[in-house]
């Protein structure tokens, strides 16, 4: 029986194969078709290997979009008391800022910073919306770039880098605020270049300040913020910076403006700002020192002592660990240093920063002011939270 079955097996297999061949021929590609399919797939694999957008990085801005969004913000609580016992208890979302950037090509890009100060802007409100940066940047060569639009004036430490997690103290220091005056931005154009090991420079032509005798020629009140700015007298700013050792920055800025009142005050004269600073971070130790001085040449500023406006601060700090740092700062400034009036002001700050994340900071500091005038001095503490992304 087994032999009989075995003798039929070749015949049965032969019939089965013969019967199934037409079916296979209908559904299966020929060898030629298969070869074409393989070649097509190989072409696609090679294309994928060389593609920027499908996953393999190329080191050429392989981000999925050429437009970027960022921002920062800070909420402040001030609990301060003045000489007369009046207490200031205030909660303020001081700054809410959004960055928008776009890369048009490898050598042309756009930067912007839109800021809402004090939460609400509009008629009768305490805040304002400000366009603090909006400029195009062109690469001229590897070491030279040109910018045109609204940009931050290259003066001081905080004016260009002021995200809350990058500095100590809830409020920005009063010297850069009142003398530089930070945050200071203007419309115009500048060149930014670098040379050697760590040298860089900026030179720019931009809208000037527009202060007045009514404001006692205070520089901070002269910022025009590129809002239908009067440009009868432009300002020129230059800065040289050296950062040739990790953790060290030395810089000096010089600005000249022919008339800080844009021709509205014949007694105003020209104005020169000189600023220099040093920043040193080595291991857990940090030190910031800044000096700034304005010289206003006219009889008008001289009459009210505003022909000299100057200030300095020194800020040592120590990072206990990556998340916690402490600091102390002594600030002194005078917007009417040109005469003998009691106009000098000083402020001592002591406090700490806690970074639960490198981009998030919690701050607390104690503040004590000492004004020669003996009025308006604020003493107390400040709390703050800040972030950037």
């Amino acid at each position, binding site marked *: 029986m087994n032999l009989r079955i075995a003798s039929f097996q070749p015949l049965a297999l032969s019939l089965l194969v013969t019967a199934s061949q037409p079916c296979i021929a209908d559904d299966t590609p020929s060898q030629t078709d298969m070869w074409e399919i393989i070649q097509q797939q190989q072409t696609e694999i090679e294309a994928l290997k060389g593609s920027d957008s499908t996953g393999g990085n190329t080191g050429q801005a392989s981000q999925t979009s050429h437009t970027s969004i960022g921002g920062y913000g800070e909420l402040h609580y001030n609990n301060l008391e003045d000489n007369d016992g009046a207490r200031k208890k205030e909660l303020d979302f001081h700054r809410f800022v959004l960055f928008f950037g776009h890369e048009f090509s490898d050598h042309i890009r756009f930067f912007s910073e839109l800021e809402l100060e004090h939460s609400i802007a509009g008629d009768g409100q305490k805040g304002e919306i400000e366009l603090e940066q909006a400029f195009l940047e062109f690469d001229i060569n*590897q070491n030279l770039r040109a910018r045109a639009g609204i940009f931050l004036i290259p003066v001081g430490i905080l004016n260009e880098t002021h995200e809350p997690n990058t500095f100590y103290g809830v409020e920005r220091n009063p010297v850069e605020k009142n003398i530089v005056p930070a945050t200071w931005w203007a419309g115009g154009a500048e060149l930014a270049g670098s040379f050697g090991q760590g040298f860089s420079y900026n030179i720019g032509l931009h809208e000037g300040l527009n202060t007045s005798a009514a404001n006692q020629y205070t520089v901070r009140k002269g910022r025009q913020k590129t809002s239908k700015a009067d440009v009868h007298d432009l300002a020129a700013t230059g800065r040289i910076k050296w950062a040739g050792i990790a953790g060290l920055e030395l810089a000096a800025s010089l600005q000249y403006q022919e008339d800080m009142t844009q021709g509205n005050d014949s007694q105003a004269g020209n104005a020169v700002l000189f600023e220099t600073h040093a920043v040193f971070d080595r291991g857990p130790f940090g030190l910031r020192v800044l000096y700034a001085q304005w010289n206003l040449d006219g009889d008008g500023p001289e009459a009210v002592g505003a022909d000299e406006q100057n200030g300095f601060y020194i800020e040592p700090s120590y990072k206990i660990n990556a998340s916690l740092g402490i600091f102390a700062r002594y600030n002194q400034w005078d917007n009417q240093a040109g005469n003998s009036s009691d106009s000098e002001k000083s402020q001592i700050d002591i406090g700490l920063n806690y970074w639960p994340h490198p981009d998030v900071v919690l701050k607390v500091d104690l503040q004590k002011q000492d004004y020669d005038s003996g009025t308006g001095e604020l003493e107390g503490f400040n709390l703050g939270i800040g972030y950037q992304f």
Partner: protein
Amino acid sequence: MKKCLTTLHLVSGYLLIALFFSANVSLARGTYQTNDEFLAQSFEQSIPAPKMVWLTGDRKQTVKNILNHDYPNLRIRYWQNAAISAWILDEIGKEHPITVGIVVKDGAIQQIRVLAFRESRGDEIRHAFFTRQFEQLSLTDNDQLNQKIDGISGATLSVRAMQRLATLALFLDSETR
């Protein structure tokens, strides 16, 4: 002094006017070294064929922990021979991506270079006085650089971007060995 400052005023004006007239001509990129130049320098004999490491599973999560965000691609290209691996990676400092080339040997950074810098400030990170700090750094058990990097004032975000990329290259090298 006044004469000097007036000269500064005039010179800056002249330069800027010249700039605007030259802005339409061909402009060079802010690139300090091309990818090919970096690879040729890294592999003295011959550049090996590129490989891909896929960012999936635990590896994807670790990469996210290192960068504080997902890597924008599903896989990362690298070049590797028996001795070293080379990585060309992008990371945004503040607004625009910085391209960095990193060579890893024996689990430590042999070389790190800024190939292209597109941010408006902070390009001091490309200088040797800064990049030298990374040489011979390796990873701790919890995927951190084993030594602190001294930063650059005004370039905090660029410095941190470079630290993240150095950490990422070391981690990926360990994953592909």
